[in-house]
């Protein structure tokens, strides 16, 4: 065999290998996508089959098709409402311009549009509320968890209280929070709506605990050697907490934060329903009270929206955890 033929054979082999590699990559992607897709399709069939057998006083239980239609309607309503708002402002400007033309000293005002909130406004309100509640919870939970994790005494003192309040339902807190907010948040020109504060505080009260408990465990399980290092170096408390305690505990703190955010998002819907905070919870409640033939479909849209947003929130926390974590080799899921 001459060298030329050998070279050409090698070239052929190499191209075959490239093709094989591409094929295996494709196979992997397909395999990765096939099972989830199969699951979704089977679920949709099951849903459709079940839905067509349930008749409620508001008509047939919505199947996937109805929900799809309703979600399109909700988007259309959003655009329609925005157009109305734009038109409203244009009218005002025209009117003001005329006024000024007549009398340059006339006082003109732009009044805000007070049309009803669209579905997307409501999603935004919910996100904003949960973020506020979650932030309050985090600001309390992490320092509390660190204090309990560092000191056996603080832990013994605080633990019974944590264990008692941890299993309390948001619905039990809500009346109390409502009354307290009404009593204490008195202002002629309130920056926050009372319903917003009530919902956010209820979220905070309920999503505090997973972060507290996980931070305690994270802080309490610092490597003994590292504690000894800090003692030999006589690290001051702030340096000790910053350089040793928080980095050691960060994986478990994040586990807690993710659980807390998921809890908070779940609690929020219930809180909004009862506190009438204009978010997704209120949307569902209003649709339920409204009781039209499209209500159940619209509620189902909200259910799916809530699920998807919850999922996205968890992924966002995971991404944040990956960014903050010092151990880039760690496996996150």
């Amino acid at each position, binding site marked *: 065999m001459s060298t030329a033929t050998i070279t050409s054979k090698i070239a052929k082999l190499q191209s075959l290998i490239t093709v094989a590699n591409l094929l295996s990559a494709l196979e992997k992607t397909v395999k990765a996508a096939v099972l989830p897709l199969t699951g979704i399709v089977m679920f949709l069939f099951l849903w459709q089959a079940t839905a067509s057998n349930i008749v409620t006083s508001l008509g047939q239980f919505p199947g996937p098709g109805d929900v799809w239609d309703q979600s399109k309607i909700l988007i259309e309503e959003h655009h329609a409402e925005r157009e109305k708002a734009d038109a409203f402002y244009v009218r005002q400007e025209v009117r003001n311009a005329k006024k000024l033309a007549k009398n340059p000293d006339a006082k003109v005002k732009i009044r805000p549009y007070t049309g009803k909130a669209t579905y997307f406004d409501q999603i935004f309100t919910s996100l904003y509320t949960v973020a506020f509640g979650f932030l309050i919870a985090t600001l309390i939970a992490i320092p509390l968890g660190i204090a309990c994790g560092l000191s056996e005494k603080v832990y013994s003192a605080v633990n019974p209280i944590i264990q008692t309040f941890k299993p309390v339902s948001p619905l039990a807190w809500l009346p109390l929070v409502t009354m307290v907010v009404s009593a204490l948040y008195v202002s002629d020109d309130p920056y926050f709506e009372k319903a917003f504060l009530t919902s956010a505080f209820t979220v905070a009260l309920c999503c505090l605990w997973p972060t507290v408990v996980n931070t305690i465990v994270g802080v309490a399980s610092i*490597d003994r*050697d*590292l504690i*000894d*290092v800090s*003692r*030999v*170096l*006589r*690290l001051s408390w702030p340096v000790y907490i910053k*350089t*040793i305690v928080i*980095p050691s505990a960060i994986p478990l703190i994040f586990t807690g934060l993710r659980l807390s955010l998921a809890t908070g998002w779940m609690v929020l819907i219930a809180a909004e329903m009862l506190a009438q905070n204009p978010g997704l919870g209120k949307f569902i409640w209003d649709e339920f009270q409204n009781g039209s033939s499209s209500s159940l479909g619209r509620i189902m849209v909200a259910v799916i929206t809530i699920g998807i947003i919850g999922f996205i929130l968890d992924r966002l926390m995971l991404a944040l955890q990956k960014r903050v974590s*010092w*151990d880039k*080799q760690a496996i996150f899921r």
Partner: protein
Amino acid sequence: MHKNYLEISQVGIEFPTEAEPFRALQNVNLSIQQGEFISLIGHSGCGKSTVLNIIAGLYQATEGGIILEGREVDEPGPDRAVVFQNHALLPWLTVYQNVELAVKCVFKKTKSKAEIREWIEHNLELVHMDHAMHKRPGEISGGMKQRVGIARCLAMQPKVLLMDEPFGALDALTRAHLQDSLMEIQNRLGNTVVMITHDVDEAVLLSDRIVMMTNGPAASIGEVLDINLQRPRDRLSLAEDPAFNAYRQQVLRFLYEKQKNPAAKPKQVESASKSEPKTDKVSAPEAA
């Protein structure tokens, strides 16, 4: 003035247990001079680490005490740096930052920023780790981590360097390299070192004196052996040196005849009241 630089006098310690307090050490007396290299050797669970932790101030002696340069020691501090068996580096900091943390604790007020930087780099050079300064502990080998652990301690310029089985977790070849490095550094800097070891060869090779401990409970110092071998020492030529082998024999005889391994012979009179605090495995020292 160099006499009794570090004085361990009448040290005893009890640990509370559920039944009755467990007496780990009793009547430990030892005077260490400046620049001396001391090895503590004994079977597992005999309280070697406890002695070291008391010197470090991490444990409080129940009776007796430690005097360093005329002052009593009762809490941990950077003048008694500890090299831990498992390096105890902060995994989220780079090699440089790990040393920096220690240096800043000791020299923050006395050195300028540039001096601190130089001093960290100098100490990493001393242990031949300047090439991996900006790596994290997870990215370097076990031997390298231990080198950094040593650099961190040296950089604190401690009065005493305490080493708790510093090479115990390393393979034989890496261990030999690190022992050579340690000898070289000690030759240059003249540190006072107290090292715990399981390894008879290591003890004879590195030490000026070997302190052999009896088995616990209520362990104490059994014998002290002076090692009068010329420095600098070379492991190859020492391997054939009759004096070196005689020292080894003496330590081995102490460990395996006078103080039999408590784990090997459980039915001894001394260990009748058994409540061993340590569960780490007994590893027989290798005779190379």
